[in-house]
């Protein structure tokens, strides 16, 4: 396997220009094109979810409920949560970057089931369309959690349509996960053993396990809520001896692991970024690889920490509290290993690296506050306050979204063959970091002081902190709009990237940018470990 960059001939045929027209995109089975389709879809929904967030922050700029009524506010945060989680964050890294990169990283021509891959995009859009339809009809007001008995008996909003949308999108997530699992098991190039895989692939493997094992359970739970509303099959109905808390069990059996569906892929991105920009092999490869699996498995044993105050038994509360502390261990392992990788590395401060460094700080805060919340006694006080809101935003936005953007900046030259402006991208990374902290740090404080979540009005004394938060959200919004602009700009005017603009290690950097449809001219044979920067350097010198 030669590490030499293939020269980039001007009129080379690649996956982008091999075929033209809408049909060639809508019927494509190429994993790279499907990744682009997903990129378009999720960016669209990210924008809509962001719009909802702006309205929420605008309402909360003043203590009185003056911009929207309580009922509208409920619909706003429900739409925000449902869209951001099901339509953006869950598919984000796997369906875009994973889809694009996994076959290339393992030296395959495509995923194991290309048609299933395309189908997953259509299924996703079908579910998303249902949700948008529901939104146009007024939306749901249950929160993204759809808790019974409110969702099943009392809510007068578009619960069924919204929930069914989530149900359908769940299938697309299962399809992606299944495809990845089979691909990683069965399609690896000769010589590419499990412990030579990039950690990005390991992280996606672990993510896929969660998607496959967890999603069906929330699917049935959602289906049962619909059955209760439509058919009187009241599995959670107290009138027939049902227990609404059982819904919470089924819901969180999936939805806690689902938070790892969102964070694990970004951890995979992190491992790639940190090694590439420290020019070093990752510290403790096997620890990082196995910690992904450990997170996937342990993540299934902790869901009860969402039920501490939901009449769950105290014994179960204690069990779940202790088990939750355990998950913090593999997460910490990752952080330590990334930091150790930086140590004595030759670090370069390219844009993706800025995102990576920001990620570490924010993720640590999110994780540590998670451990605080996992402490039974503490959680009773801050449950359902802004403290929780801040906690999960630190992880899902500070972690997962930063990881996604970092990855997008890292692989954009590979995906499009173009470079984006370095200056503006650094500015945007900085704006996002500052804006993010300004938005969400005050929420820790205001939550700790007792401000509950999901209300459109609040006591005057919380205003200063809320105004800070709303101001931060504005900065954050600018930070997100900038990349949208320069990414689109770069597709036409950006400098040509060449095969390996970062001088990074990995199969994807050995093929041209953008890659040809079948990725490799010849099936690669892998003879080296992952992140073998040492050998790469020797070759350069030679």
């Amino acid at each position, binding site marked *: 396997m030669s590490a030499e960059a293939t020269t980039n001939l001007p009129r080379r045929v690649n996956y982008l220009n091999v075929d033209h027209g809408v049909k060639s995109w809508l019927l494509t089975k190429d994993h790279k094109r499907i990744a682009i389709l997903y990129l378009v879809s999720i960016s669209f929904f990210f924008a809509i979810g962001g719009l909802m967030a702006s309205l929420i922050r605008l309402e909360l700029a003043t203590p009185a409920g003056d911009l929207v009524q309580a009922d509208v506010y409920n619909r706003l945060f429900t739409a925000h949560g449902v869209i951001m989680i099901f339509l953006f964050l869950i598919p984000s890294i796997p369906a875009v970057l994973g889809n694009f990169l996994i076959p290339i990283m393992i030296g395959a021509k495509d995923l*194991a089931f290309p048609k299933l891959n395309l189908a997953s995009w259509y299924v996703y859009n079908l579910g998303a369309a249902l949700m948008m339809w529901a939104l146009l009809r007024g939306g749901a007001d249950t929160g993204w959690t759809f808790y019974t008995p409110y969702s099943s008996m009392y809510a007068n909003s578009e619960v069924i349509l919204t929930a069914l949308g989530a149900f359908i999108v769940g299938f697309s997530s299962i399809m992606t996960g299944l495809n990845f699992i*089979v691909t990683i098991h*069965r399609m690896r190039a000769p010589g590419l053993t499990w412990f030579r895989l990039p950690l990005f692939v390991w992280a996606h493997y672990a993510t896929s396990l969660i998607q496959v094992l967890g999603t*069906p359970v929330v699917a*049935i739970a959602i289906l049962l809520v619909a059955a209760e509303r439509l058919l009187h099959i*009241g*599995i959670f109905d107290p009138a027939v*001896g049902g227990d609404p808390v059982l819904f919470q069990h089924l819901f969180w059996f999936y939805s806690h692991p689902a938070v790892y569906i969102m964070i694990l892929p970004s951890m995979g991105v992190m491992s790639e970024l940190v090694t590439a920009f420290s020019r070093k092999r990752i510290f403790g490869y096997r620890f990082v690889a196995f910690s992904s699996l450990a997170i996937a498995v342990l993540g299934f044993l902790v869901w009860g920490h969402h039920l501490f105050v939901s009449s769950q038994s105290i014994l179960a509360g204690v069990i779940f509290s202790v088990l939750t502390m355990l998950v913090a261990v593999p997460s910490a392992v990752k952080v330590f290993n990334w930091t150790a990788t930086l140590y004595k590395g030759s670090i370069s401060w390219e844009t993706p690296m800025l995102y990576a460094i920001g990620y570490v700080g924010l993720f640590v805060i999110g994780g540590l506050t998670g451990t605080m919340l996992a402490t039974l006694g503490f959680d009773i006080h801050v449950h359902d306050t802004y403290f929780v809101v801040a906690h999960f935003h630190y992880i899902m936005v500070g972690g997962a979204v930063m990881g996604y953007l970092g990855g997008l900046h890292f692989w954009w030259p590979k995906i499009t063959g173009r470079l984006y402006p370095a200056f503006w991208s650094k500015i945007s990374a900085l704006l996002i970091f500052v804006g993010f902290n300004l938005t969400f740090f005050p929420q820790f404080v205001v939550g700790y002081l007792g401000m509950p979540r999901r209300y459109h009005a609040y006591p005057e004394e919380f205003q200063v902190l809320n105004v800070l938060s709303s101001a931060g959200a504005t900065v954050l919004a600018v930070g997100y709009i900038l990349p949208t602009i320069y990414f689109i700009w770069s597709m036409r005017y950006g400098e040509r990237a060449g095969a390996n603009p970062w001088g990074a290690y990995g199969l994807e950097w050995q093929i041209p940018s953008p890659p040809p449809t079948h990725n490799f*001219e010849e099936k690669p044979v892998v003879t080296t470990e992952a992140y073998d920067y040492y050998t790469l350097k020797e070759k350069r010198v030679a």
Partner: protein
Amino acid sequence: MQAESSRAWGLAHHFDNFEQQREASYLGMWVFLVTEIMFFGGLFTAYVVYRSANARAFALGSKELDITLGAFNTAVLIGSSLTMALAVWAAQQGKRKQIALFLVLTILLGGVFLGVKVVEYRAKIDHHLLPGPDFHFPVTEVDEILGVQEGNVEMFFNLYFAMTGLHALHMIIGIGVLLVMVVLALRGSFSRKNHNLVECMGLYWHFVDIVWIFLFPLLYLLGRNI
């Protein structure tokens, strides 16, 4: 790429050979079945939770079911699993006509199962055992003292209809796919080398059978001794 024209028919471009293709679809099917386990798993969890809270009510509900029809259907479904297994066996040897024959037998047995299910459902509806406003179940005084309320029995029927309904839905989908496969088999789409579809469909059908193997005792048998 260069081997494209000389590639065997039925081998997708991104696989190296039939073996890789077969192993991929086989693994994919198994992973799919795991998602099915978890899908039904939610309902089984609800069953276990509610039965552990009120076993007597569940026993009363259970006694309303027709054990003869249930047992008959169990036998029918096991029979259909046998014919499905034989269809796969025929496919492995490229016996085209026999594949079609065994698939048709499987479909017929599946149809019998669903027919019996309709009869059972109709009887439950006639006896006001369909959950909803019309549900009615007289609870004796003794049972009431033992903690049974009408609602608890209704919960049993909630689960009965949810579980058997979801199971029946899987059978209907299965029969639909099997019908397509009969046509494919007659057209000669399956060969000794390339019969993944038959094999994967076989796995699906056996899985549905296994779900019933658990549903039958849970819904029809437990509590008969009370």
